């Protein structure tokens, strides 16, 4: 057993932190929360130049051929900076779907474009039922001529409003088990018949409603095998869950660091508030939460990275991290007192990120149910 990171991973972490500290200050994050697009194209281009989009894509698709675990390290730093923009939806949600199920042609086209920053992408799975169960897929894709016609509404699709590619999970066959009869399609973001509406979220994350009204998709745009799309979705959601955990761990660490620093400098009653045992124990509890979250996350990420069965570990991680991140930000706010309640303080960014992350790719209750199932209960 080796709990250490490799030298390359440490270098990746350091360089990512340096870059993001300079290029992604808190003011930018706050600005992007209110901005329609939600990202700065010039920063996007710089990130692409660093090779980050394609970090975990094979080299033949303009990727760096690094591992999922390496990506987790990078995502931690992105979470620490609360990086706004379509990195996660493009790389993790859409990218891994294409990587998992795409034809050679599709991978060449789509992954390369994501890797170079040319294309923004996302994955449309959830619908108004807001569920990650196969039975929740009601958007239909009916065979018509030499392609399919997609009808229905997707909800909570990240960055759909700016996506060039939307990977859509739609039902191609009724009857039988709900896991059967779902197909993944690569749909152009601005295809005729698509109406995208930006939802107003607590953190300003760009979740969208996407209405498909007789959207025509050619056969060539089927991703993977017809009717056999659900196992791919399942796998991608699992990866996305642990990737989100990595982001959340980074955010939690930032909240902790900020709070400890504040506790050392803020003086009340003639001494730093960090000299009061109540505050000390708050910080200790935050550290316990961050540390345990990091361990669970990397345990799951490692297994995913190694291609091992990881359903149990992923669910354990997401169930735990959801609540740990919220606890950490709550205590972070408590330590900062009134000043943290101001919009222009950084702590609200983390609290809001926590409240956002906790429901994406599975709530704690949903993941605990999965753990129970894995335990044979």
């Amino acid at each position, binding site marked *: 057993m080796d709990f250490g990171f490799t030298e390359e991973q440490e270098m990746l972490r350091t360089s990512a932190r340096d870059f993001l500290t300079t290029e992604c200050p808190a003011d930018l994050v706050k600005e992007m929360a209110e901005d329609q697009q939600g990202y700065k194209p010039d920063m996007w281009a710089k990130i692409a130049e660093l090779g980050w989009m394609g970090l975990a894509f094979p080299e033949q698709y303009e990727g760096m051929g690094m591992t999922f675990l390496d990506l987790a390290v990078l995502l931690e730093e992105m979470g620490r900076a609360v990086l706004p923009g379509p990195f996660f939806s493009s790389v993790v949600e859409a990218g891994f779907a294409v990587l998992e199920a795409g034809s050679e042609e599709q991978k060449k086209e789509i992954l390369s474009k994501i890797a170079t920053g040319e294309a923004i992408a996302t994955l449309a799975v*959830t*619908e*108004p*039922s*807001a*569920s990650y169960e196969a039975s*929740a897929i*009601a958007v239909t894709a009916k065979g018509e001529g030499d392609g399919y016609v997609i009808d229905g509404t997707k*909800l*909570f699709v990240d960055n759909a409003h700016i996506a060039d590619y939307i990977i859509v999970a739609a039902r191609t066959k009724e009857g039988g088990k709900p896991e059967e009869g779902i197909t993944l399609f690569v749909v152009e973001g601005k295809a005729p018949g698509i109406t995208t*509406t930006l*939802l*107003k*979220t*607590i*953190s300003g*994350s760009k*979740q969208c*409603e996407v209405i498909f009204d007789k959207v025509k998709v050619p056969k060539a745009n089927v991703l993977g095998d017809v009717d056999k799309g659900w196992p791919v979705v399942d796998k991608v959601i699992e990866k996305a869950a642990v990737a989100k955990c990595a982001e959340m761990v980074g955010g939690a660490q930032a909240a902790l660091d900020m709070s400890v620093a504040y506790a050392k400098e803020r*003086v*009340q*009653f003639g001494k730093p508030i960090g000299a*009061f*045992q*109540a*505050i000390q124990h708050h910080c200790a509890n935050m550290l316990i939460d961050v540390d345990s979250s990091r361990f669970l996350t990397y345990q799951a990420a490692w297994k995913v990275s190694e291609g091992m069965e990881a359903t149990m570990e992923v669910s354990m991680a997401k169930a735990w991290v959801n609540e740990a991140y*919220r606890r950490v930000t*709550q205590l972070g*706010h*408590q330590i900062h*007192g*009134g*000043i*943290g*309640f*101001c*919009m*222009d*303080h950084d702590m*609200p960014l983390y*609290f*809001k990120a926590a*409240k*956002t992350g*906790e*429901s*994406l790719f599975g*709530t*704690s*209750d949903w993941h605990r149910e999965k753990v129970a199932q894995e335990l044979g209960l």
Partner: protein
Amino acid sequence: MDFSFKPEQEAYRQEIRDFIKKELPPGFEAGVGGHVESDEEWKIARSMTKKLAQKGWLNIAWPKEYGGQNNHMFSVILNEEMNYWCAPGLDFGGVGMLAPALMAHGNEEQKKEHLAKIAAGDVVWCQGWSEPEAGSDLPNLKTRAVEDGDDYVINGQKVWTSLAHHADWCFLLVKTDPEAQPKHRGITFILVDFKTPGITVSPLVTMSKERSFSEVFYDNVRVPKKNVVGQVNGGFKVAMTAAGFERSGIYRIALALRNVDRLIEWAKRPQPDGTVPAKDPVVRQKLADLYIRGRIARLLAYRVAWLQTQGAEPEWEASIARVFGSEFQQYAGHTGASLQGMYGMLMRDSKWADPECNMALQSILGIGATIAAGTSEVQRNAIALRGLGLPRG
């Protein structure tokens, strides 16, 4: 022992509900403690204040000699109902804090000049206490008042002043003796006309995107000495009277109870996929737990109110009620948002947000609950030291 309300108290509660139904525009909802944002909303809030004053309800807890009805319980019931139904108009600062301080420590001239106007809802008061360096450690305040003839000249900065941008007057805590030890012995309580030159109000935006508080800068503000309430350097005692009048904390609890009730109704409604959250055993347990906490919080608040009607000055009981109530509000806020899953991310004005039950904002507001007006840590200190007699560190 008797946990029931008297028939006249129940009748009053119903009267208040009828009043709110009649006077408040349908669907209008104020924020925590009756906070409103826009100018139109402020107009409505002001008109509600006037209507409450006309009914004699605004100052119903005041002693009879000052025009009140000496009815503390009625006041708490009013507070509960107004906040449960999210109706603005109550005047916590003027009616609930400054007026009791004037009654106990003010001189006749001050009482004559201010009390009637407060009772009539004619004046907006704000509370100038906290500073950037004086949060929990209020005696550490630095806003300085220096004698100059018949006046004090005030320089400094206050923060977390609610209603400052609408205020006519402010009850301010200033340092008149920076050398005093302990620090609280150098503080004076003084009334400031907000039209006085030198006052700059700078609204703060909270993480809930509300402009409920301001920074207020005092730059050579000249205030007559006769505006000092009580003794010079004896202001801390006056402040404690102001803070001690209404200690039930029911307003936060009422808001949280409303949230829990809304969540319960939400859980009964079929979701877009036809499923009903109330059928999920995990949801049932969590909602039942929230409800249980809410009943206890409310009971504690009324207990404090009842103690005050008995003439007692609840100390640790009030701290317990405060901690429990604020932590309940916080817990209800973030648990409610979590229960709503992805919908819990949506702000109230978003497409697809549940118009009847939106917990995203509530989860944010919950953050402030355990910080404002005495942090949970400070409350626990009080419980430990004064309630249990534990030795100081």
